[in-house]
């Protein structure tokens, strides 16, 4: 556990140093998006992959984080790390609430409720003039920031924060996977009735999962207004967040922390490339088709495929 954390932190530091060495603004912008997807995909997987409960409302949790930043920024511009904390609290509470209302029922109700949540939150935000309504809100991003005596470029600062979040998310996911909580999640995924009968406190565990998952999605969303500079409901609630945070773990593999990471890096960089070279609609179509193809052909994602090949290779 400690070893894994150290390795992840070291890799994170190396990525940071490497990016600083190359120092191209576009690189920061592009890799910020990929890191954001790593956080979202990992967060989705804590509930979806480990527990087996599908959340279609990733965009809603992400947007809650983003809009709580806008809201606080309008009152008093706090530093971004505190905004991330605020986003985590808001989306975590929302995750808990959604879970409390729907998780006692059949699994599909939770999925449907999260799907509806996105539509309704968007309605609320569109009608809420204080955070910009349907017109959107501007956030003037400072050019650079003083940080322990050195000034760094603001976009590099945001990139660093998102990198840190990705590292924390991955460590959390792996820790959960190997802990008693993770085994509890797995029993729910495999057979909830049997788990309940053997004394696993299913509702409490599921609520922990929805809260952690929601909180990480909110954290991913909180720095977003600063990154994009102009936040409007249609970009914060964009369908690409909902579809990517499902497609990435599904394509990477849902049973371990590495699946969402692999999926996010592959799909995320492919999309950065495709958005520039083709069009964003075509690239979303490709993601959708890949999602359908993968759930049919490779139910355990790329990780499952690789494991299958290794097993087949070792046998003879």
């Amino acid at each position, binding site marked *: 556990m400690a070893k894994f954390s150290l390795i992840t932190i070291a890799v994170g530091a190396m990525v940071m140093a490497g990016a600083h060495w190359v120092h191209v603004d576009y690189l920061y912008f592009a890799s910020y998006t990929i890191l954001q997807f790593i956080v979202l995909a990992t967060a989705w997987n804590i509930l979806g992959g480990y527990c087996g409960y*599908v959340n279609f409302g990733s965009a809603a949790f992400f947007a809650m984080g983003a809009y709580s930043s806008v809201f606080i920024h309008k009152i008093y511009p706090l530093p971004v790390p505190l905004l991330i904390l605020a986003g985590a609290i808001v989306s975590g509470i929302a995750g808990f609430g959604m879970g409390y*209302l729907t998780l006692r029922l059949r699994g599909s109700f939770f999925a449907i409720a999260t*799907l509806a949540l996105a539509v309704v939150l968007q309605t609320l935000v569109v009608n809420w003039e204080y955070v910009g309504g349907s017109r959107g809100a501007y956030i003037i991003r400072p050019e650079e920031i003083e940080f322990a005596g050195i000034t760094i470029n603001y976009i590099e600062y945001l990139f660093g924060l998102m990198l840190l979040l990705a590292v924390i998310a991955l460590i959390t996911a792996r820790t959960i996977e190997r802990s008693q909580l993770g085994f509890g999640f797995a029993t729910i995924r495999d057979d909830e009735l049997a788990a309940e009968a053997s004394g696993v406190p299913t509702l409490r565990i599921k609520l922990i999962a929805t809260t952690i998952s929601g909180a990480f999605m909110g954290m991913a969303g909180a720095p977003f207004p600063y990154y994009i500079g102009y936040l409007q409901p249609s970009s914060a609630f964009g369908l690409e967040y909902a*579809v990517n945070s499902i497609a990435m773990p599904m394509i990477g593999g849902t049973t371990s922390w590495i699946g969402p990471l692999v999926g996010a890096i592959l799909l995320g960089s492919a999309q950065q490339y495709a958005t520039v070279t083709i069009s964003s609609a075509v690239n979303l179509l490709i993601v*959708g088709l890949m999602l359908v193809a993968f759930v049919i052909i490779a*139910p355990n994602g790329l990780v499952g495929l690789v494991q299958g090949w290794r097993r087949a290779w070792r046998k003879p």
Partner: protein
Amino acid sequence: MDISWDLLLNAITAGLLLGGFYAAVTAGVSISFGMLDIVNIAHPAFIILGSYIAYFFNIKFGVDPILVSVIALPFFYALGAAVYQVYYLSFEKRGQESLRGLAFFFGLLFVTEVSLILVFGVDYRYVEAAYIGPSLHIGLIDLPLRMLVPCLAALAMFSALQLFVTRTFIGRAIMAVSQDQMALQLMAVDPIRIKRIAFGISIATAAVAGALLIIIQPVEPSVGREYIGRVFAICVLGGLGSMPGTLIAAMLLGVVESLTATFYGPSWAPAVSFGFLLLTLAFRPAGLMGR
């Protein structure tokens, strides 16, 4: 508080007409989700597909949208049967419908929507027919034909479905398949075939619902998403698998949405269905007419 009575009366009438249309939109989900336990969240996307087919033949050849949808029924039935076959072989047979099945339908929803964007663009499209525009006036009440015609067509389709489900052998088998697959097998009926037929019918209703939708309002590809919450709210509120319950719930939601739109502004209407859904799930998960 000063409420103008003819405004209130007209809002309720409009809500009832809207509710009739909602019943047609929900009928398919009532079969697939309510009776077969297949969480087809892509259903609204099929409805939008129906809208665009109605739009295409209406603008190109001037065919009446409802007539187009009736002609499209067998194609949608075949599409539904094919989707079910893939779903059955890939997920239901392997027992993976809860996670991957949902992701599959989500992918379908997404692919359909983006394909429509690529083909038709994101502009709002509408159809032309003689009954779009004029209104009937009965006393204080206005009955716009563009609402009345879809409502009547929806009710006709809904009654036909209800008769089919309760009076025919296959219809009863559909009701039975959700309750006891084994008993059905003992009667020498293949449950998979029954489910395929039922899912085909459920997608076929989307052709009609889509045509009705584009008569009522202009359509663009992402409109379908607004209907996801609505459709499942009606389905759950009505009681899973109960057609009469679905009709009552659809009317109720139509009226409440119409009142909200009239007295608070139309931008709040989508929030109503979600409120209904959450309240139902929290207080009476079995729905109004649940068994």
